[in-house]
């Protein structure tokens, strides 16, 4: 469950990026946030992902007020509950797919034995198991994205955030992504996708429109 109340984000006293936003997302819901470039989608997602802090307002995720947690607890919360697939994937390029997932597991455990089965499972779910030992640098755009998705799934996060997931994909890969997204939706994950791609209009989902830092239903 995500509950946002009167969220405002300012970078300078006079520059407001997010302006008094309030909304709720129920568990297992699929939500699309649409908006042109520069409307504040990435900023909103990074606050939801607990990577950024609001200037004012409340952010409650799974009944936890995350806007004012110490970094130690916040990081733990992030590792346990949030899977974030960023626009540029944010993989470590010179490492293998497996090592990238190992880093994610390393936030919660120190045992490789424990991590291994989870990694295999996540790679299977994201349909990238065959590239397990490949170096990320050598992967195609679609494969990189699936690696990033696997990494988001590896700690069994219940909230998945996607930022512009189809921006770097051709139409065929975009279609594959939509199928994957629907699979994840079936797994009862709470999913929020920020995009300006009309391809998502075909999906049956709750949709918000973002404009100049304001959110409309």
């Amino acid at each position, binding site marked *: 469950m995500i509950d946002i109340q009167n969220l405002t984000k300012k970078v300078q006293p006079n520059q407001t990026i997010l302006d008094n936003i309030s909304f709720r997302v129920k568990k297992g819901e699929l939500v699309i946030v649409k908006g042109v470039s520069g409307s504040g989608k990435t900023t909103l997602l990074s606050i939801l992902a607990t990577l950024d*802090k609001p*200037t004012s307002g409340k952010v409650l995720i799974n009944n936890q007020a995350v806007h*004012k947690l110490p970094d*130690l*607890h916040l990081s733990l919360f992030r590792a346990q509950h949030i899977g974030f697939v960023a626009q540029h994937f944010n993989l470590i390029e010179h490492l293998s797919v497996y090592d990238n997932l190992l880093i994610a597991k390393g936030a919660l455990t120190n045992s490789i034995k424990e991590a291994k089965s989870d990694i295999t499972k996540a790679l299977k779910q994201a349909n990238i198991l065959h590239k397990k030992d490949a170096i990320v640098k050598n992967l195609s755009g679609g494969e990189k994205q699936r690696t990033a998705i696997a990494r988001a799934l590896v700690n069994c996060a219940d909230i998945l955030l996607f930022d512009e997931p189809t921006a770097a994909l051709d139409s065929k890969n975009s279609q594959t992504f939509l199928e994957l997204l629907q699979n994840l939706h079936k797994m009862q994950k709470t999913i929020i996708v920020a995009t300006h791609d009309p391809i998502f209009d075909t999906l049956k989902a709750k949709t918000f429109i973002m404009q100049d830092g304001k959110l409309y239903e």
Partner: protein
Amino acid sequence: MNKILLNQKVIIYLSIETLLLLLATIAFFIAFKIVKNWDINSFTPNQFTLERENYLFITLVQMLLFFSIFDTIYFIYVIDKLHLFIPGAMCAAGVINANSFGVPLLLLKLFFIFLLLLWQNINILDLREKTFPYTKIKASFFIIIFLALIAIIYFDINYFFHLKTNLPVSCCSTLYGQLEGQNPLPFNLDTKLLLILFYLLFIVVFGALIGEVAFLILLATPLFLYIAYYSVTYFFGTYIYELPTHKCPFCMFQKEYYYIGYLIWGSLFLGTFFALIWAIDALLFKIWQKKLKLIAQISLFLFVIICSSYVAFYYFKNGVFL
């Protein structure tokens, strides 16, 4: 130029102290900022910076604790080795008593470790919570710790600068030996009473740990530490050295006695420190930490067992007591 200051071991020791002071100074500045500006309800970038600096602060103090423990062990080792250069000294006892700065320095160093352990304990409690409940206390407390370190450095400098290689000092047998008709034991105890008190206090402390009577621990542990010091120096030590006249808390750090002093004094201080911290937690913060209690129990038990077994083995071997 004082010859002692050119001794390799002293140079290394003083360098370590300097580096520790440097670490502590950085931590002190952050602690000062936290005490002054910490506001958990504020959403300003200033507060976020402070929260990040808080983690640097924690790591610095943890490092300080880690290296201070080794530094203190090394200090004892150094003064033990220095007896070669101080005329009249047979072990660390003569060296540490060579001027009036030595004993306070050693006690301060031990107390410093206790303070740091207590700090680390509060830190653990603080990090467990989601509201930084003790961060400000922690920072204020560190300022006191920092002052203690300044005092240590002051004594360090004075001690080593005033350590003379040409002035003869007394050796342990004069320092701890009984002068005619004079009883070195506190409260006018004799050896028998001392031992009864020793085991009695041990049972009280141990029992209070099992029964979790924090108040009693806080009272009995310092007393036990005090009595234990005299018991080891004036009774158990003689069995370690197997000589009824050899009374010294320091000789047991030497190779001849298999460095057992490090284990004996180490386990005593570890046990009493952890027992005290456990009691402080229980009284002040209403938190009962199982791990602390367990470490305290094991260390104290180990301490008493080692001491007693020296006596027992001597009896088995020779059929008599000293």
